[in-house]
């Protein structure tokens, strides 16, 4: 009962006490709320577990090779308008059967792992067999194997959703700026444009934060290896697009980006 009088003696008004109690109560409630939220905010998938499996196995890009058109081992002699003696051309050299290596050289100063083990030997054999198979049938490389996508550091990128670049204005704006460069480098011969009108080629690639295009692979081919190759070459020749918005950089670098090339019917 002496409280108020003591406070009064010290010059402290009652409303000040009430405000202080209220503030501390609010602070306490806030801290409890924070604790509850932080415990519950452990990483969770945005999609159910079974969906994750499907995405990993099916929706992610497949390992692909960049393929030349099926070589003609003994090209036809030119048709002769008048009787001529054009001899049949020689078969193409082996160097024609593969594209130049587009993979960058290892950075200087960094060690390159060179352990020889059974796994590597086996992979080398598989590569050789695969290359030989491709010479016989270049289309064999289109979508021949599913492979879960991993991030550059080898860790799984985990489950991801899919979205269109038009899903939000910022992404759409970036794509609008990036498209012209890709379109200008995408060239197909008119005969293919007419023959394959209506077909699409889906290419998966990674985009670094500075806009550099990396590791393009055909995910879904058109049925024409030359058309698929032209789409890949458009990525290689473009090399770089405007830097993506910050909020997309992690997705573009770790999950990647799909470009759907469409040859319209008209």
């Amino acid at each position, binding site marked *: 009962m002496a409280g108020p009088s003591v406070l009064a003696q010290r010059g402290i008004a009652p409303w000040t006490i009430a405000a202080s109690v209220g503030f501390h109560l609010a602070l306490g409630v806030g801290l409890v709320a924070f604790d509850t939220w932080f415990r519950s905010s452990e990483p969770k998938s945005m999609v159910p577990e079974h969906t994750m499996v499907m995405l990993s196995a099916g929706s992610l890009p497949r390992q692909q090779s960049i393929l030349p058109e099926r070589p003609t081992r003994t*090209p036809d002699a030119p048709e002769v308008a008048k009787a001529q003696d054009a001899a049949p051309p*020689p078969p*193409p050299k082996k160097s024609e059967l593969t594209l130049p290596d587009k993979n960058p050289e290892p950075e200087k100063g960094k060690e390159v792992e060179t352990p020889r083990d059974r796994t590597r030997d086996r992979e080398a054999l598989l590569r050789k067999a695969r290359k030989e198979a491709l010479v016989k049938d270049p289309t064999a490389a289109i979508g021949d194997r599913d492979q879960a996508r991993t991030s550059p550091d080898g860790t799984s990128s985990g489950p991801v959703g899919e979205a269109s670049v038009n899903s939000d204005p910022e992404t759409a704006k970036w794509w609008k700026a990036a498209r012209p460069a890709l379109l200008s480098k995408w060239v197909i011969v008119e005969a293919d444009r007419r023959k394959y009108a209506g077909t699409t080629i889906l290419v998966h690639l990674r985009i670094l934060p500075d806009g550099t295009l990396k590791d393009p692979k055909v995910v879904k081919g058109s049925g024409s290896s030359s058309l698929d*190759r032209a789409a890949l070459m458009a990525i290689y020749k473009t090399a770089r697009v405007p830097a993506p918005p910050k909020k997309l950089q992690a997705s573009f670098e770790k999950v990647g980006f*799909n470009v759907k090339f469409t*040859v319209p019917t008209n």
Partner: protein
Amino acid sequence: MFSRLGSASRRSRQRSFWARATATVAAPLAVVAGLSLQPAEGLAEELKLYTGELSYPGEKKMPIAIPRPVGGSGAVDEFYEVLENDLRLSGWFEIMDPAAFLEPAGTGVRPGQFRYEDWDSLGAAVLGKTLLQSRNGNQLYAEVWVYDVAGNRRLGARSFSADGDHARLLAHKVANEIIYRVTLRDGPFNTRFAVSGAFSGNKEIYTVDFDGYGLTRITKNGSINIQPSWDHTGTKIAYTSYAAGNPDLYVADLGAGQITRISARNGINSGADWHPSRNLLAITLSPGGNPDVFTIDGNTGRQVAQLTRDLGIDVGGVFSPDGSQIAFTSDRSGGPQLYVASADGSNPRRVTFMGNYNVDPSWHPDGDKLAFVGRDGNFDVLTINLDGSELTRITQGQGDNEDPVFSPDGYYIAFSSTRTGQSHIHASTINGRHQVQLTRGKGGYSNPDWSPKLDW
């Protein structure tokens, strides 16, 4: 908002813990202060696989590399110049600068003799390699090999030969072959134009190659000779001449070197057009004073039928590509408009309704479209479907553009134009996007008619 923050990677969560803790402690204070909390800009959102779409533009020119021909012929300069010019005129290609080529001069033309990489790195889509040799004294021999650079494949190859002084002809053949292999369409370089040329005060009939070279005079009467028309064999040209004082119809037989007057009726005998497969001409005659469209025999000039009997003026009848219909100009509804009727003149129907002056129809080889001249200040070339749909302007604001005619494959429209000050023959792709001047030098060209594909 918080769930989006929490779904970032573990590493980024750890890094941003203090930022979020600070935000959380501040949250009640901010609420007290009446503020709302927004996530910091730039924080990562959930990982997603985005897809962007590209649609191939239909009218894209293909970068083509044409290295200088190998083989050592003395005619290589002329051959190379004509070949490059042909491919440029065609509208299909963007010709790459030879100065940028990486491949050493003289590298072979056949598969395995060169590297695709040398052309891929330059951005070439198509590679046209040629060989030109002089053989057997006075013979020229050419090979052309066409490659899809991006696809690393051969599109086709062919060889040709010609007399030693026909390097230009040989280059035209090679250009056609390249166009065919790349587009699966015939090139236009085995065709010619018949034209009316006013180069010396009068008007004479000439023929000229697609690229404007090879001007050859057919008439030499010092009068007015106009409206030439090729027959379907490419050996006869019908035209109207005032050589005898009246607009009469003549036929020049190019093979026999003979000119015959086949219609000299009273009034006009003009605007003849050959039937696509028969020796028959559609012609405008005015036996009673009023012009109508008739058909006459291509040898004798004997009247076969009268196709129009309207009180209005009906002129300029042209057969459809299959010969089943005829298009003509009539003012029966007031101003001149385009009409189409059956080949016997029955069932006439009006095609154009826009504007008050539409004349001079020309059939597309597919038979579903007409090119014509409309007037809206200047004369311009337009196209329209037979049902009146898809009215498309080919020219605009570039002088007077008249006398349109489709190429045999229907990919181009040629017309006379005064856009450079003098009247020359120009060609456009049927969408109007690629237009080039074909004839050079002194102007005065008019009434072009496109020959059928000619045998070389």
